[in-house]
Every structure is written in structure tokens, then in C-alpha cells.
């Protein structure tokens, strides 16, 4: 039986994720890593539709927030039935499923639009979702909702350690899903759509079906990335949950890393996310979006295929010598 390097890497990454809280006891580093890993999931989720299929989604923050608010819904609902802690294991899949259903619905409604029109529709969707949540008092509405973390966490000594491991597993799983899609008939079909949708349709590629699959999987991953957010922040309100920063980063990270492969969003999220987190506590928070902006402009002009494109170019040149 042949085991690929990728799956060995996945196994190693899982072991490292599980061991890290025992080695890194300082919660700050774990929480910083959580934020970076969250962006790995977001960037990967965006890339499935945006990178593989060429459909640019500006509504990422909406799907992410729906995942978060699904978790808040469960949190608010469960105490009514006296169910104890550790609801996060229910919240995670629920957040994902709700976001996936919305993704599927969005797909049906918007995928006949193309280019900038599709992007505007997704942005509008995020605004509609925010308005709905703002007026839904059960989940806190405009006032927001406080989420109290459980007093104890099994296996781990702090809630921060648990959240880190959880997000690391989600990041690894999302990369595995993205890699599977990229290398399967879905990824090849999405690539055909990206290159020329009419030609793909004429060649028998089931474009609508593929785009719907892309929307649903992408929505699911956005949702599961958002579901732990209420437990990370402990307080959630619509303005910050639907923050445009999530949408900008989810788009910029794959663009900088390389949007046509599963490894691009990983590279982009790690480099950009880490740079932002370091800048926040060293230079200034204002630098965060400036870093994103400057890098995005640079990569769009100088390296449109991101880090992956640069690496391919460099390695290709070396081989041809």
C-alpha cells in the first residue's frame, strides 16, 4: 500500500497540533495560532469557488458569521433544555450545515450571474444576512450575546488550548478537502469553468452542478470556521461578526499564496496572518490592512499566481538550465 507524502504530512500535522499545547504553555501564542489557522480555513473555503472556479465571493464574512450565529443559536437554545456544556461539538457541524445550505441557496440564486455581478450579489447577501441577525433578538440582535465558556475542559487545561487544537484539526481537514476537490473531477471541472465556461458547457462539463457543489462545500467550511468564534471571543455582535476584514483576508490570502492549488491559501494565510498578528502587537493595528493591501497590489502586479507561481517559475528556470 502506497501512502502519499500528503497523508504523512497530515498525520504529522495532527500529532504536532495535539502536542503543541503541552509544549507551548503560553496562551497568547496559542490564541495567535488560532487566528492564523482560522484564516487558513477561510482562505481555503474561499479558494474552492474563487480559486478553482474563478467565481469571486465577497460575502465570505456573511457565511463565516452564519456559522458563528448558528453556534450562538444552539448556545441560547440548549439552556432551555438544561443540556450541559460541550455543545461546541453540536455547534460545529450545525454551523457548517447552515452555512452550506445558505451556500447552496445562494448558488441557485446567483450562479447565473458572472464576474463582477456575482461578486456584488454575494456582497449583498452578506448585508441581508447581517440585517436578519441584527433584528433576531433570540441570538442577541443588535445588542450582541455573551457566551460563557465552560469552567473546565476535558484533556486540556485551558479553553484556549482546546480551541487551538480544534481549529488546527479544522484547518488540516479543510486542506484535505480542498486537495481532494482539486485533484478530482470536481476540481478539473471547476478549472474548466474558470478558463471558459461556455466552452466547458459545450464539452459536457456539468457547470451548474459543479458550481453548486463548490458553493456548498465553500459555505460549509466558512461555517465551521465561524462556529467556534463565539467561544473564542465570548461576546458576539453583528458588526464585528460580519466584519469586512474577514472577507478581505479570505480573498487576499489565496491571491497572495496562489489561488489555483490547495497549498496557496495555506501559504497566504500563514504568511499574511502571521504578519498581521505580529504587526498588531509590535508596530500598530493600523498596519494590518495596509500590509494586506500592499502585498495584494504587489502580487497582483508582480506575481499574479502568488507564492506558488513564483516557486514554479523559479524551479522551472532551474530545471531548464
Amino acid at each position, binding site marked *: 500500500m502506497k501512502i502519499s507524502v500528503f497523508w504523512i504530512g497530515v498525520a504529522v500535522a495532527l500529532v504536532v497540533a495535539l502536542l503543541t499545547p503541552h509544549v507551548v504553555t*503560553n*496562551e*497568547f501564542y496559542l*490564541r*495567535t495560532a488560532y*487566528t492564523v489557522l482560522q484564516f487558513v480555513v477561510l482562505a481555503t473555503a474561499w479558494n474552492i469557488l474563487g480559486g478553482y472556479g474563478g467565481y469571486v465571493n465577497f460575502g465570505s464574512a456573511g457565511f463565516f458569521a452564519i456559522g458563528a450565529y448558528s453556534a450562538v443559536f444552539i448556545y441560547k437554545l440548549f439552556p432551555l433544555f438544561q443540556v450541559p456544556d460541550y455543545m461546541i461539538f453540536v455547534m460545529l457541524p450545525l454551523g457548517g450545515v447552515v452555512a452550506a445550505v445558505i451556500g447552496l441557496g445562494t448558488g441557485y440564486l446567483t450562479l447565473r450571474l458572472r464576474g463582477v455581478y456575482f461578486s456584488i450579489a454575494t456582497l449583498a447577501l452578506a448585508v441581508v444576512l447581517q*440585517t436578519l441577525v*441584527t*433584528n433576531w433578538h433570540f441570538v442577541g*440582535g*443588535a*445588542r*450582541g450575546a*455573551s457566551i*460563557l*465558556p465552560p469552567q473546565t475542559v476535558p484533556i486540556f487545561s*485551558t*479553553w*484556549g488550548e482546546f480551541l487551538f487544537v480544534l481549529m488546527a484539526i479544522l484547518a488540516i481537514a479543510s486542506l484535505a478537502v480542498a486537495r481532494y476537490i482539486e485533484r478530482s473531477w470536481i476540481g478539473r471541472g471547476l478549472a474548466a469553468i474558470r478558463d471558459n465556461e461556455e466552452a466547458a458547457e459545450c464539452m459536457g462539463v456539468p457547470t451548474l452542478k459543479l458550481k453548486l457543489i463548490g458553493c456548498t462545500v465553500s459555505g460549509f467550511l466558512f461555517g465551521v470556521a465561524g462556529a467556534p*468564534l463565539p467561544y*473564542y*471571543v*465570548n*461576546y*458576539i*455582535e453583528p*458588526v*464585528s461578526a460580519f*466584519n469586512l*476584514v474577514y472577507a478581505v483576508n479570505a480573498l487576499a490570502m489565496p491571491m497572495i499564496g496562489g489561488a489555483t492549488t490547495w497549498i496557496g491559501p495555506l501559504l497566504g494565510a500563514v504568511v499574511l496572518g502571521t504578519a498581521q*498578528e505580529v504587526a*498588531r*502587537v509590535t508596530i*500598530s*493595528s*493600523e498596519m*494590518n490592512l495596509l500590509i494586506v493591501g500592499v502585498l495584494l497590489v504587489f502580487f497582483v502586479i508582480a506575481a499574479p499566481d502568488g507564492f506558488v507561481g513564483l516557486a514554479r517559475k523559479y524551479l522551472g528556470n532551474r530545471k531548464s538550465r
Partner: protein
Amino acid sequence: MKVRNLTIGRRLLLAGVAASAVVAAGLAAQPAAAQDKPLKIGFGMALTGGLAGAGKSALIGMQIWAEDVNSRGGLLGRKVELVYYDDQTNPATVPGLYTKLLDVDKVDFVVSGYGTNLIAPAMPIVIQRNKIFMGLFGLGNNEEYKYGRYFQILPAGPQPRRGISSDYFVIAKEKGMKKVAIIAADAEYAQNSAEGARLNAKEHGIEVVYDKSYPPPTADFSPIIRAINATNPDFVFAASYPPDSVGLVRALHEIGAAPTIKMFGGGMVGLQYASVADALGAKLNGIVNYDYYVAEPTLKFDAIEEFLTKYQPRAKAAGVDPLGHYLPPWSYAYLQVLGAAITATKSTDDKVLSDYIHKTAFKTVVGDVKFGPHGEWESHRVLFVQYKGIKDGAAIDAFAKPGARQIIKPEQYKTADWLSLDDGRKAMPK
């Protein structure tokens, strides 16, 4: 041989004595070195994002406190150092910043940033480490936690949602008003405030004839004022943010209030800022609104004028609220409470300090402060002021002097009687 041995022994003895002296000196110096270590107070503050203007002015107040304390030799002989980061007015950044402050920067104390949304995410982290936590303008952050080491400086009393508008409804009741219209922005403070207003209305037997929210990006408030007028309320309680407050006051001025409306205002954020007030000028006259400090003769708190004298030139240079009547004295005061507790107990132990703060009344730049069991003020002390005699383009000068914002409630600080909206518009301060 013997002599030589003796010589070596003497050298050894001398070396030993010298070494002992060095070690002893080193040991003696250790506590001194600990004393020399600055006492670090950490916090996140909104220096960018939606609350940046207020956050920057609060930071100036905190820096003035640190300088004042350090000019007197610091706390327990240690210089005070403020360690702060920009929370970007984004709650998602707060957990990371507070773990950085506590686990990496190893600050001695953490205090909150500005506002309910930015206090809430820090609470579990602070509670997990059993640290004392001073809050700056949070509304009911400790209602669910009931954490014994949390103290909050907003003077809204033990039931903050109600306390913020309590006296506004007392005025209405005293003047025989029976019907209220409540209008609130769809956002955290405004919704909390509106909820408190409903409870206050119920307590005083006042009928709510209009109760609506509007989304924060609303630009045209004319339809809202028309809808309120159509219900003929006796008074209007508005809970709004600065841009909306400007919009509401302008719309009220353009369309006019229904003849039944005798009082307008209550919970409008922004009218306290000199720059907003300057933009509205004479349109403010007659409005009754909450405030925390105004230049009236009854509010002669300990060193408040000295504080404002230091604050105002800096604020001008930084381009933030030039008068500093709203937030900066409170950002100074919440550190003042912490500093006073450290000095009085001669301790930096969180339990000792929180026990002391619970049982002590503090004299601060915002007056006497006494906290209740869950860290809110023991009783509310929100001022309700009526704007009078303000001329267009001269609001900043008017706000700096007594007369433009006369205190109607509470009784102990009262400087003028309440006038109806129409009479207040015409009145000139005495």
C-alpha cells in the same frame, strides 16, 4: 612554608570576604531591583475603528494619570508604565491582546478598553486568572459573571440599563407627562438603553406610544420624526450614536416637534462632544440629554479643573475632543481608584485590592465613587442637562463655561429648573 601557608590563607580569607561582600551586596540589591521594576498596567484601547476618537481621548486621560502618579514618585515606589495596544474597536482582537498583556508582557494589572463590546471579550480571560479588572463605560458586563473583582466606572448604578435613563423618566413623571416615544439605533448601547427606558416607563406608569429601531447607517431622520409626531407623545426618549444624534436633532429642527412634545433627548450619544455640539449650535437649545460632567458650579470635584487644564492642550494637538468633558475624566478616574487602592493597602495582591475597593468610597476627579457588590456604582449619578442659549458656531466656548448645559437632575447637582422644549429653545441662561 608556614608563613607562606598563612599568606595564602590570608589571601583566601580576603578573597572570601570580598566575594561574600559582593554576594551580600547582590542579594541586598535584589529587592531594590524589584522595587525599580515599573508597575505595568495593560489594556487594549480603540485607537482605530469606530470608537477611535473617544478611545484616543481616553488614552490621553490615562497618560495624564500615569504622569501625575510618576511625578509623585509612582506607586509603592515603582514608576507606573502603561502598556497598551490598539483593539481596532473590534472585539475579536481583544482575547489575543489581553493574553499578550498577561502572559507575554507580564503586566501587573489589566484595565479595560472603552465600551461594553470591548470589555466583554476580556472578561473570561481576566476571570480565569483571578485578576482585578477596572472597566471603562461598560453596560451590564458583569450581570452574568457576577465576578467579584470587576469594577466599572460608568455612573449608571447597580442596574445600568435602567440607571442610564432613570432620572429622565423621573423628570417626565414629575412634570405630568404620560406618553413616551422611544427611538433607538439597532446597536448595542442604544438597544440596552431602550430596554432600560421601557422598564422605567413601566415603573412610572408611562404609556409607550411609539417604540422603533432604525439601522445605524440611517441618514435621513425626517420620516422618523414625522412618525413620532403622528403619535402625539408627551416626550421622546432617543438612544442614538453621534451621527444619528446629529441627524435626529437636525430633522427635529427642520420638521418641528408635535405640539404635545414637551421633552426630547435622553440617551443621545455625541451631544456631549464639543465638535458635534459645535456642528449643531443653536439647534441644541431646549433638548434634555444625559451627561457625565458639565462646567456647572455644583460639580466642583477634586482636581477636575487641573485635569482638564492638562488635557485640553494635548487633545487639541491630537485632534480629539477639545474639551474632554465626556470620557477622559473617567479614564483618569478608573485608574485613580486602582492607584488609590494600591497606595492605601500597600499591596498589589488582587484579592486585597478588590476587598479594599468594595468597602471604600474614593475621591476622584469625577466625584465620590463607591462600588456595589457586582462592581457597578452603588447608586446611579447620570446627569440630565438642558441645553440653553447656545449660538451657532459658538458651542465649544459655551460648553466650556457654566450656563449652556444646566443640570436638571439629580437634585444634589441641580442648577436650573426644567423647561419645556419650546421654552428651553427661547431661554437664555442666567
